């Protein structure tokens, strides 16, 4: 497993962790759209942005596949 893959797996694991922990434990006392709703909106944009960072680097291969 490459270091890049390891980094992104840890990053997405972290995102997944806060996806559950923040609303259930930190935002439980905020009965307002600025609580969990805003959190999940920002969280989604962050996750989507991370995916764009990964796949925008992809390119069609200049040479034929090996193997």
């Amino acid at each position: 497993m490459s270091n890049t893959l390891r980094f992104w797996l840890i990053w997405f694991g972290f995102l997944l962790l806060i996806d559950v922990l923040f609303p259930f434990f930190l935002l439980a006392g905020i009965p307002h759209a600025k609580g969990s709703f805003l959190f999940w909106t920002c969280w989604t944009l962050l996750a989507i942005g991370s995916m764009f960072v990964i796949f925008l680097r992809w390119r069609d291969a200049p040479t034929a596949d090996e193997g």
Partner: protein
Amino acid sequence: MGETFYPWMILAIYAALGIAVAAVARQQMGAGMNEFFLANRQLGGIVSALSYAATTYSAFMMVGLAGLTYKLGVGAFGFEVTYLCGLALVVFFGPRFWLVGRRFDYLTHAQLLADRYQSRAVGIISALLCLVFLIPYAAIQLMGIGYLLAGVSQGSVGLVAAMILATVLAVIWSNMAGLRSVAWTDALQAVIMLVSSVITLCFMVYRGFGGFAEFFARMNRDIPELLSGPGLFKFNVFVGLALPWLFFSISNPQVTQRLFVPQSVKAFKQMIGGFLVFGFLYTLVSVFWGFGARLLIPDLQSADLATPALLALPIIPRLIAVIVMVGILSAAISTIDSILLSLSSMAARDILKAGFAAGMTEASELRLGKLIIPILAVVFFVFAYWAAGKSGLAFMIAPLASAASAGLLMAVPAIVGAFFWRRATAAGALGSMLGGSIVVLILQLTGTKPLGVWPGVWGLAAGILLYIAISLFTQAPAEKAEEFIGYLEKNLQKYRFI
């Protein structure tokens, strides 16, 4: 005339338009299994993105998710965006599916598993899992259509008539040109789904509340319990619903098959990017519908009626409501026809050909696949008809969808291991799929949730343990593992895949 005429007229236009698009797609169709079921791996990026979105987003969104938001609040939003961000798995696994699909000419993920583990049994069991667990999932699409059309048309289109219409259209569009007609009609339907739902949202927010500021103010004032923390979701319910959906993109065959079809890396990027943008917008709209319905019609007997009741309100113009009805019909049919196509390819290749007729010609295999499509459609319809007569939480659309996904989750250890673990074995893959599925089925059928944890979570835990433990004590197909994983290691970097 208007009350009965409008819905049927719009439905007729929709059906005619879809058939015309499918007919154009048919003119480009070549011969063979790859052509029929994978559009010869030559789909462009925009069509792939819209088709991926239409396949993934079903009647569940506008009916089920809106209903779940209505009932349990903001946690429904969290659960759905957790699924959306599960697309990170496509960023990791998609390129791997795509590369080996081209290299080894795979048609389905069951075929991939059978070849990687050098075991026909692995392919057969994987395909059977998909068949068993996708039947309720496809059936709920029909139920969603039934609820919705009956509600919006105020009875002029009955529940059973709506389900029959959807079944027939799905069969026609699947059969006309296979994935080409499905993808093209999906693309058309995705546009209808998004545009009609956004227009309705605008009518709801501006006519019902006077604008977004007042809409949010009413949410904060009138339903604070649905906004606090995860809303009325319990922790175990949230995890139990979200976990199967998180892995949806690599466990559901109608979605994994999409990973084989982009014609280039550029098309693959467009597919993922387009889907993410579409998904985020569509999720927001569905959730807003749920909150809006809760504020405007707070006393519904069933949460699944939130959308039909919302569309029946006078603030939504009749014509718009009928177009939205078609949008949701589109969402459901585009999911059903993709499932029909995937399952028929699995039944033909991974079960019947691999299991009983290895010498079958490609032409016979294709004929068989096409024959299976209407048979499966009838099975979906019968299940939907039966389930639509039930009531209670177990038959709410969202939990039923998640229960189906929980079963499909059992292939995930074998799929992940296929790409990364050379030591993995066929016995381990079989043990995890069968053991995990048995755990899920027993818990689902008995309605048991040990420690309050949902069946999918227990099934996945059992599946992972069995996969690792059995693999460590059995013989791995070393040569194939090296060929498969070695090929990926050599070629991933070339495309800058990670």
